[in-house]
Structures are given as C-alpha cells and as structure tokens.
C-alpha cells in the first residue's frame, strides 16, 4: 500500500545548508590556522635573527675594542716618539747654543753636560775675559755657578766652571 505519490528520498546529515556551513567554517578555520602558523614561523624567525644580530653585535664590539687598543698603542708610540724627537732637537739646540756662548778668546778643552748642570774646562787669557764674556751669560742660565782658576804654562789661566740648575727653582721658573 502506497501512502505517497512521490518516491522517498534518501536523507543525509550533509544537507546543502550543512555543506555550505562546513565549507564556510573550513575556509575560516584554515585561514585562522594559516595566520597562526605564519605568526609562529615569524616569531621563530625573529628570535633566530635577533640572536644572530646580538652575536654579531658582540663580535663587532669586541673587534672595535681590539681596534681601539691598537689605536691607543699607536698613539702612545707616536706621542713617545714625538717627545723623544723633540728632546733630541732641544738637546741639539742647547749644545749649539752652549758652544755659541763661548767667546773666541776662551778655548774649551772639555765640556760635560749633565742632567741638571754643566761643567766646562778651558783656558782664558785672564779672569776679566772669563767673568764678562762667559760667566755672565752662564749666570743668567744656571742657578748656581762656581769657578776655579789655576795658572797655565803660557801665562793664561785654566778654569773649571761648574754650573747647576736647581730642580725646585727650575720647576718654579717653568710654572
């Protein structure tokens, strides 16, 4: 006995509405998961890059330290060499000035240049020539000047002139 004129259709849980819904949510969830995966990947990538950058930064800073050490060493060498070269030039000028200081009438036989003094040995025709032409300029340079004379065979006088610069007074003069 037939109760209906139409054939019974097969019923399924996946109706058209349900299919639409599943498709919509599948796409939505896929997008969400893909975004999440992208964010996770980027997080990992940023962390790795940051680590690399920090390691590189450390290496660069250590290299800069090394370079600065070399620079300071070269500057130290440069300063020391300039100091030594200047000292040599000053020494040359001092010796030159010293010999220029000695008048023609006085003959030196020996000159000892000390750290803070000068000892001259020589021969002079008389005391006046020595006093006016050599001792006077020496007195203006040195703080203490001592002279001693003894006769030479030709009637001239041999002299020993000892001159010192007092370190304390030198310091005050420089100040």
């Amino acid at each position: 006995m037939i109760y209906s004129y139409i054939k019974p259709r097969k019923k399924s849980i996946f109706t058209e509405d349900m299919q639409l819904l599943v498709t919509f949510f599948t796409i939505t969830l896929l997008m969400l998961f893909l975004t999440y995966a992208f964010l996770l990947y980027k997080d990992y990538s940023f962390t790795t890059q940051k680590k690399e950058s920090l390691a590189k930064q450390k290496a660069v800073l250590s290299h800069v330290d090394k370079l600065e050490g070399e620079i300071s060493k070269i500057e130290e060498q440069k300063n020391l060499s300039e100091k030594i070269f200047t000292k040599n030039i000053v020494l040359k000028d001092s010796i030159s000035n010293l010999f220029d200081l000695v008048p023609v009438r006085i003959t030196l036989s020996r000159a000892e240049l000390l750290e803070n003094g000068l000892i001259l040995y020589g021969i002079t025709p008389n005391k006046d020539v020595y006093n006016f032409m050599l001792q006077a300029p020496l007195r203006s340079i040195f703080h203490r000047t001592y002279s001693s004379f003894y006769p030479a065979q030709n009637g001239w006088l041999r002299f020993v002139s000892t001159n010192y610069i007092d370190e304390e007074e030198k310091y005050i003069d420089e100040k």
Partner: protein
Amino acid sequence: MKNSISRQHIYLISISLLLFVFVLVFAFGVLIPEGKKYRLQRSDLIKVNKKLHEHEDLESNTMEKLKDLQQKNRTVITAFDMPFNPERFEEQNKKWFSNLTISKVDFSKVEGHFAIYEVNTSSEINSPKSFYDFLDTINKSDWIIGINFPIDFKREGDLIHSSFRMKVYCNNLDTNASTSTSEAK
C-alpha cells in the same frame, strides 16, 4: 501553535554556534596575543638591527682611523718593533764620526708598553757640527733613540772625543712585565 524548527535546523544552528565560539576563542585567545608578540618581536629586531648598524659604522670608522694612523706613523711603528742592532747603527752613523764605538747594550727598565735599553757610546768628531748632524739624523733612524745625559766632549788634539748615553725604546713584547720599573738584566 506547532513548533516549526526542524531537528535538522537545530543541528545546523548548534554546529554554527559551536564553530563560531571556537573561532572567537581562537582569534582572541591565541591569534591576537600571538600577533602582539609578533609586533613586539619585529620592533625588537628592528632596534637590534639598528644598533648593529651603528656598531658596524663605528667599526668601520675605527678601522679607517686605525689605517690612517698606521699609514701616517708607519716609520714610528716599524721603529718600535725593530730590535736594536749595534753593528747596523754603527754602519748607519759612522759617516758623522771619525770613530764610533757602541760599548754596551743594557736592558734598563719597562715603561708602560715599552722596554728601554741603554747604550753607551763613545766617538770622535772633527767639529760639533758633526754631532749636530748626527742629532738631526737620529730622529730618522731605524730605531727610536733618545740621546741622554751625561754628554761629555773632550778635546784630544784635532779631534773631539765625545761620549754619551742613548736610550733605545722598543715595544715590550713580554706583556706580563708591565711594571713600571724592572731590574736591569
């Protein structure tokens, strides 16, 4: 009144609601915090990279400065590295003297990064000018040399006998011996 919502629709609405809630929870609970973290990480990385660039610039500037210094002071750097050779010194400077003798090379002391050696020198010169010329050239020699007191000039016939002390400065290779003064060897 008869209820018109079918069971099918109830399933549909329930699943929709469930999925919607899941999407909301996932978005607010996971995605948005992760997004914030991503932004922070990105800005952190930009800062770190900026700092790295600054340091790289500093490195390249320092390197340039070092190269410039090395180029300008090549002679001085080489001179400090050169161990003193009395024979070579005599060879180089004998033209200024009638006779030149280097009597002793003594280790004197360590000053900072430098070792100082003392050399006693005796020579004979024709005139003080030879000594001035020697002092002029000493600054261009292969070593860093300072002429030191006492300097003695003594007339001996036509020649002047001169004796003086030289201080030779070179790099102190023994990094442990950085004390200001060491005992002479």
